[in-house]
């Protein structure tokens, strides 16, 4: 059963977001839901499904989904809490599509809320950190520094090439007044090279900022979508892959070192949508770190393994380029909207709402998510993809 274009995204919305927003994870979640429902031109009584990102780094996940339903006053017939990190927003849209097709609900809100410093909530430390933290290895960035070093070793990728990703996405953020880095203005490769080292070989500008935020999208059946406020954005392809390939000493022989089992997430989505790479008008790559974009371009087949560095250096990701990407600024410059921002920007592009940063006649968008357990043992990853069409 191919679910291509059986469902559509009909609303997107975000809470106030920024480096520090003095609101709870729950309030950020509720605000995201409210704005997305309003954007769809619906009321909460039209919603009968709720999917949520579990606030996994905080000790507040117990009963999270039903408590959120109660706070929203929504009577849901299908709900779940998911945690595959930054791959979760896309996974929720996929699950909503499946649940609607299964007849369990008609209109699903997919939402996350993220408060980096929640008051009164103890941080929970997963046991997998026992093999990293005692060596001074903490947080998400350091493992990407290990990956970047290995990529540089294998393929000759350079810090300037990673910088090209940051420069391009900042340029796009400067056309997005909502972006966290909008006021900071554009950056150059030299700014990137002069930014301080965080964990060598990654610099400050290789890294997404910290963002307190909440955001949501509304998914409903294609039939219902055609009678709502906005032009429907159809869910045409979806895929996932979960693996530990990069640092696993034994591997799937189909994926030699330098390639990624995560590529399966794109193969499945492209197959479902019946489109090819050259059909993609606009892309939103999960970009918590610059190196990730280079690796994803390779993993998802936009270039060959090892060629991601030169691919980004030649301006292909810029508006007006061959593959305009992260047109709102991405995690790197719009803010760390956990990948929900990537879905929302793809929707805005396909609706034609992006004004200065609009990709002309955008009809097909590719969106990726990335998460999992990338900095605790066993090191492992979750990849998710969406192909959206208008």
């Amino acid at each position: 059963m191919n679910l291509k274009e059986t469902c559509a995204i009909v609303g997107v919305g975000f809470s106030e977001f920024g480096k520090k927003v003095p609101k709870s994870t729950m309030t950020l979640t509720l605000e995201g839901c409210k704005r997305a429902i309003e954007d769809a031109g619906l009321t909460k009584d039209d919603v009968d499904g709720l999917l949520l990102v579990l606030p996994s780094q905080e000790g507040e996940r117990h009963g999270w989904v039903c408590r959120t339903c109660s706070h929203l006053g929504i009577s849901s017939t299908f709900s779940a809490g998911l945690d595959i990190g930054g791959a979760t927003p896309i996974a929720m849209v996929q699950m909503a599509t499946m649940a609607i097709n299964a007849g369990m609900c008609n209109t699903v809100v997919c939402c996350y809320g993220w408060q980096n410093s929640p008051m009164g909530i103890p941080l929970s430390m997963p046991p997998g950190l026992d093999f990293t933290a005692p060596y001074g290895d903490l947080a998400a960035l350091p493992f990407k520094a290990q990956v970047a070093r290995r990529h540089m070793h294998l393929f000759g990728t350079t810090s300037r090439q990673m910088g090209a990703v940051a420069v391009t996405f900042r340029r796009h953020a400067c056309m997005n007044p909502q972006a966290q880095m909008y006021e900071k203005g554009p950056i150059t490769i030299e700014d990137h090279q002069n930014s301080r080292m965080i964990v060598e070989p990654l610099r400050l500008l290789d890294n997404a900022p910290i963002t307190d935020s909440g955001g949501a999208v509304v998914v409903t059946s294609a039939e219902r979508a055609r009678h709502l406020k906005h032009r429907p954005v159809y869910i045409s392809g979806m895929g996932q892959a979960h693996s530990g390939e990069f640092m696993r000493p034994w591997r799937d022989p189909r994926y030699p070192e330098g390639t990624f089992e995560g590529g399966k997430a794109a193969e499945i989505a492209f197959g479902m949508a019946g489109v090819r790479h050259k059909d993609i008008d606009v892309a939103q790559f999960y970009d918590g770190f610059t190196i990730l974009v280079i690796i994803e371009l390779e993993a998802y087949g936009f270039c060959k393994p090892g060629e991601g560095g030169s691919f980004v250096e030649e301006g292909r990701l810029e508006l007006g380029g061959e593959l305009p990407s992260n047109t709102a600024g991405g995690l790197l410059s719009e803010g760390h909207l956990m990948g929900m921002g990537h879905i929302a920007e793809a929707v805005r592009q396909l609706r034609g709402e992006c004004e200065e940063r609009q990709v002309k006649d955008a009809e097909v968008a590719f969106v990726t998510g990335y998460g999992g357990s990338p900095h605790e043992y066993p090191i492992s990853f979750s990849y998710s993809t969406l192909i959206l069409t208008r």
Partner: protein
Amino acid sequence: MVGKFEGFEIPKPIPALTEDTKPYWEGCARHELLIQHCQDCGHFRFPPSGLCPKCMSTNTEWVAVSGKGQVYSWTIFHYVYHPAYAKDIPYNVAIVQLNEGPLLHTNIVECNNEDIYIGMPVEVIFEDVNDEISLPKFRPLSK
């Protein structure tokens, strides 16, 4: 100020022993690097777990490995993620691939940061943290 919090020092995190990891850390305390070895397919696995991810066998033995390997990747920390490490900056964190296969996060010791390279041959040494915990670290392989 960094490294102190209202007059007391924040210690570096130390591993908590679990049902799965206790034999590993007990081996380290005796200065033995023990790795789980699948008795059915021969795969060495890390981190410790209840079954072999290659063949799903639960027949497992803990074996002392050579403690020799190579640097697989490495980084230098310039940022204080945890106050207990402030005085160590800049410090290295490397991933070492043991000759038997598994990859381990570690620190390279007895070596300048700028002399570390991918493929560098290394051997394990143990740093005693307390009576129960010793951390396996790696130094350049002596000729």
